[in-house]
């Protein structure tokens, strides 16, 4: 692939807009119908990173998602940002998948597309925030992985990525294909372009597959294929805070504030 540039596959998810998160009181699952949604924010950073690799080295960027047909909205937006083609895995069997079947299903889509050098994912999703699907794909496909990545350099036969870890920055070098999970805010994602939107309008850029199309057995996906279940969900009531208010002359107010904080053991 290196001669004509790398092929990158970006996995994205359509999530409810953060301020719209609502839980169904009966099923304890997230309400997704009739709630405004968007591309999972870190996935935008993954798209941007893949598009920057293409800007520099050529090749192509393919975008993949799994979910209900409405997820074509996210794919259309990714196409309008500049992705070359899109793939939607949609099937009733997929409903209720946890991270094991999700990583498995996306892996099978990636395998069927084939001929790729890099796979990009966002570091985690804003609706489930596990961060397990990216490394899960790498494990499933037996590829190298670079997680929590803030930038990559494509080196032809390898990729170099900078990882942000708790005590600093690590630079990893991995052979291809490699799965890269991209830090939220790692870059400034480009907006959809007008020409991109026109390309999407013309259509024909998105391929839709079912589980059978990618060879996924029914027992490997959905609730059946998920080791975990959510047994119950409790609503968190934030502790009510009794506000102590100080006003008046700054020196006086601050002196009272700090005294109160010391009494409460907040500061020494």
């Amino acid at each position, binding site marked *: 692939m290196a001669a004509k540039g790398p092929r990158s596959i970006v996995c994205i998810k359509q999530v409810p807009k*953060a301020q719209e998160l609502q839980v169904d009181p009966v099923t304890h699952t997230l309400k997704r119908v009739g709630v405004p949604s968007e591309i999972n924010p870190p996935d935008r950073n993954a798209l941007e990173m893949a598009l920057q690799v293409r800007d520099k080295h050529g090749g192509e960027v393919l975008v993949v998602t799994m979910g209900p047909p409405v997820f074509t909205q996210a794919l259309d937006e990714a196409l309008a940002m500049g992705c070359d083609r899109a793939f939607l895995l949609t099937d009733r069997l997929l409903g209720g998948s946890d*991270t094991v079947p999700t990583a498995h299903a996306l892996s099978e889509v990636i395998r069927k597309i084939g001929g790729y050098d890099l796979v990009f994912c966002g570091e985690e999703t804003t609706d489930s925030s596990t961060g397990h699907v990216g*490394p899960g794909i790498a494990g*499933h496909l037996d590829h190298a992985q670079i997680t929590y990545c803030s930038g990559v350099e494509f080196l032809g036969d390898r990729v*170099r990525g900078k990882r942000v870890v708790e005590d600093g920055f690590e630079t*990893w070098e991995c052979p291809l294909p490699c799965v890269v999970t991209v830090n939220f805010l790692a870059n400034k994602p480009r907006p959809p372009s007008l020409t991109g939107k026109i390309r999407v309008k013309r259509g024909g850029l998105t391929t839709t597959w079912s589980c059978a199309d990618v060879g996924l057995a029914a027992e490997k996906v959905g609730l059946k294929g998920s*080791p975990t279940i959510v047994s119950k969900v409790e609503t968190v009531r934030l502790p009510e805070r009794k506000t102590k208010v100080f006003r*008046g002359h700054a020196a006086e107010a601050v002196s009272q504030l700090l005294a109160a904080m010391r009494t409460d053991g907040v500061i020494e």
Partner: protein
Amino acid sequence: MTATADPSAYKGVWVFLEARRGALRDVSFQLLSVARKIADLRKTELSGVLPGWKVEPLAREAIEHGADRVYLVEDPKLETYTSRPFTKVMAALARKHKPEIILFGASKNGRDLGGRLHAVIETGLAADCVKFEIDEDGNFDAIRPAYGGKSLAHILCKQHRPQMASARRNVFRVPDRQPGRRGEVVREAVAIADADLDAKVVRFEERSGHQEHRLDDARIVVAGGFGMRDPKNFRLLEGLADALGGAVAASRKAVDAGWVPKDYQVGQTGKTVRPELYIAAGISGAVQHLAGMQESAKIVVVNSDPKAPMFEIADYGVVGDLFEVVPEMTRQLKASKARAVPSVAAK
């Protein structure tokens, strides 16, 4: 490790012990306290798994912090964490010894490892948990914040073993060290081939106070909003943060105004922080900002507008001009510190 696994064949609670440059990570110690409780509830043993190189003293430390046993896998190829060899070690040991539960710290490497491992051995993994229980049927109940922190979800993994979860850092306390506590160190060998070393860590730059790390780690955060009026006024917040040993953050409005970089932003489209103390100056308190900081232990709000919504979640509110109040806080804190020093020296 499939859905047909016989759960009763799996016994013991494991903790992945993360060695980093000669020491165990704080989250590994924190895991030992909660894992000890879970092991006691299940009337079983607590084992640590420690892959690394020249890390045997750390195995003893884990035992003194509550582990009954440490599986020690020493190999120069495991000196630095990379995904594939560590996954191989964990998978091999889990297949051999069949633990019932494996806990990871939700550190970057803990999640990197757990995420890969759960796909390889096909079992459940709950992320970033804040509480663990055993339910009446003996299932491991992993409890984690869900849906933007508005709920707590209980995650069960009934048919697959091991039941795995990662624990959020700084939620569980480091257990007291019990010097001389007995336990066994079991050396295990897992063959790491050169082909397993696909990832090479070619460079490491220590943090040197990078903003992203500062905010992640800070026990005290001093944040400014649109009320700061000008980028150079953030110096006032830096002064206060220095006096308290904290980090500076900002609301989206201050970031959008271009006063501070994006990595300072706390809120829905920025970072989520849970410090022990959050001081908000000149931040009106949009719900999007609250979403990123409302789990802070204590909240101080400084605002000239007594009707600012930020006051509603404050433990302490100062109604006043932040340009007077913030420097005054810095001055008084420094003054009290200066007074405190001689008394410490006198001891």
